[in-house]
């Protein structure tokens, strides 16, 4: 155990290597194609979780409306796939079924694959940035922001259900045959989708790590812990928070866009109030302020859900409720930090350290061990 192994850079390289081997080599060779597709779906949900980890864990913004951005990405992708299936100038099947068989004007641009991909990344990001700036500038925060974001999810789901002629209503959009020219019925292409999802998730995690280690990351944590002090130092907290919110929205949108072809359906049931909150379970369990916690938590919870809810649907709901209660109430920093909690308790009992004044340890203690050293010393000063 030389010092070089403990340096943050080495950890990242080793960690990325291990994750890459597991995702790209072990999983595809061990899992059946059905399981692999399931894992791909979980990875899409984990993308949303990475964004939530940044906005909620690091930025302190309780985002209860990520389903909106997930849905935006998912629906934009679905629109393109539907139009692609219909062929040039064609009309998606459900439109002739529910409506008058005319493709509405705002659907037309999504015939273009490049436009669709750009829109999936840009549109939710811009929307979140504008919304974030609007509410954060007026210092709407904490519970108020949480409730607003939740109302956004409610409104979005209601809108989707209400406009059945152009959104497919409760059924959502489904029955895609091809993905940018690749036949979706072909298992090889399903595998390709998995690799795309795994690669995207890996890039996202590295990006968040980069953000967390940057000056911006420090500012974000500072805003979470002491917004007014950051303001007095001359920064604009609204911009800092809106940026994190926008990144989270972008990740959610990409996750949704990949979710659609992998699962084969996107519907209001994936984007409303309840799914938006359920995104948070995995993040809370994994450790909201950690880098990998949200990813592992989201994958674990989705896996548990898919294996438990089929055989015991009623039990799963109780279990999910209990998870929320137990983890958030008694283990607010998640399971990823259990070891550190134990360590802290042992240290405290050993040298009988006087209490630091706050009953709750500041959340970012739980951050990845390599990164927490500078911020800890900063706080005690």
């Amino acid at each position, binding site marked *: 155990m030389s010092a070089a192994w403990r340096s943050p850079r080495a950890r990242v390289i080793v960690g990325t290597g291990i994750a890459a081997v597991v995702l790209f080599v072990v999983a595809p060779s061990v899992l059946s194609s059905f399981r692999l597709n399931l894992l791909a779906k979980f990875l899409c949900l984990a993308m949303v979780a990475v964004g939530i980890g940044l906005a909620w864990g690091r930025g302190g913004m309780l985002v*209860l409306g990520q389903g909106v951005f997930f849905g935006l990405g998912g629906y934009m992708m679905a629109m393109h796939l539907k139009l692609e299936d219909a062929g040039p100038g064609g009309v998606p099947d459900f439109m002739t079924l529910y409506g008058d068989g005319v493709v509405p004007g705002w659907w037309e641009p999504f015939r273009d694959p490049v436009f669709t991909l750009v829109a999936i990344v840009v549109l939710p990001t811009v929307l979140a940035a504008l919304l974030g700036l609007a509410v954060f500038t007026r210092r709407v925060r904490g519970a108020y922001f949480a409730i*607003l974001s939740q109302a956004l999810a*409610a409104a*979005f789901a209601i809108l989707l259900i209400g*406009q059945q002629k152009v959104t497919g209503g409760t059924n959502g959009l489904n029955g895609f045959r091809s993905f940018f020219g690749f036949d979706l019925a072909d298992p090889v292409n399903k595998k390709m989708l998995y690799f795309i999802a795994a690669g995207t998730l890996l890039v996202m995690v590295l990006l968040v790590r980069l953000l967390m280690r940057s000056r911006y990351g420090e500012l974000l944590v500072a805003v979470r812990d002491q917004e007014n002090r950051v303001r007095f130092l001359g920064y604009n907290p609204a911009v800092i928070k809106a940026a994190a919110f926008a990144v989270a929205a972008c990740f959610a949108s990409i996750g949704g866009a990949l979710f659609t072809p992998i699962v084969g359906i996107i519907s209001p049931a994936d984007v409303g109030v309840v799914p938006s*909150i359920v995104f948070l379970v995995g993040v809370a369990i994994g450790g909201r302020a950690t880098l990998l916690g949200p990813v592992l938590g989201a994958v674990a919870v989705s896996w548990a859900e898919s294996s438990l809810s089929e055989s015991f649907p009623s039990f799963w709901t109780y279990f*999910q*409720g*209990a998870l929320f209660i137990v983890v958030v*109430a008694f283990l607010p920093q998640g399971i990823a930090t259990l070891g550190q909690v134990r360590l802290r308790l042992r240290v405290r009992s050993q040298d009988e350290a006087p209490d630091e004044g706050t009953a709750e340890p500041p959340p970012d203690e739980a951050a990845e061990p390599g990164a927490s050293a500078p911020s800890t010393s900063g706080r005690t000063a």
Partner: protein
Amino acid sequence: MDAVISQLFAGLSLGSVLLLAALGLALTFGQMGVINMAHGEFMMAGAYTAFAVQKVVSDAGVSLLVSLVVGFVVGGLLGLILEITLISRMYSRPLDTLLVTFGVALVLQQLARDVFGAPNVDVRAPQWLSGAVQILGVGVPKTRVFILALSILCVVALSLVLKLTPLGRRIRATVQNRDLAETSGVSTRATDRLTFFIGSGVAGVAGVALTLLGSIGPTLGTNYIVDAFLVVVVGGIGQLKGAVIAAFALGLLQATIEYSSTASLAKVLVFVIIVAFLQVRPQGIVSVRTRSLA
């Protein structure tokens, strides 16, 4: 003219339902700062209480009146249990309370599903509430008038309790300055518990009232919780007056927009208007002026 009046009543009626749903929240969220996502499930519990009471008391009129009382107690007790077991540990972490109570909401919903079954059930409305009354030449269903009256009654009763009784004085003192209240001999813990009991009890009453509007199911609460929170946010924290104004304003707004478009579009437009409104008045309609940092 008739159309305007009937829209007006539709808005008032919607507003009164919102008000009933939000009134308890105005106490627990507005006064105590606790975000209770299980509030909607307390309403659901109230609604199922009405269903259960009707099984015992066959006369629909008597059972409605009995359920209003029993619903209050059931909602209140649920709230009390929640406060003592979980929320009391988490006053310093309001956002986490939201998630914990969401977990409670999930459990309560599933419990209702297991006990009463997933399909919706109906509660018979009493004979004297069937039909419509003519108000200004427009026929308004009697149940709607009853709910409007009930919501006003609840507001009046609550504000009287807050203004006149020793309990109300303790609640206001605790809200305004917890430390000073404690120093002056007020047991803030007991006050918190009682406030939560009353707030959750009102949710139970709201649930009983909702049985008059249609069949009830395990997800009854989720349909109202978001709107109810919006009412409190728009109304402003700390005073019932704000919630009353906000509930009726949102109800009228929703009904008006609905008239010229669709219900789903109206919801979205109302949300946009709320965000725009919070740009102008981030503290809500009625705000208590403080000198603390915003």
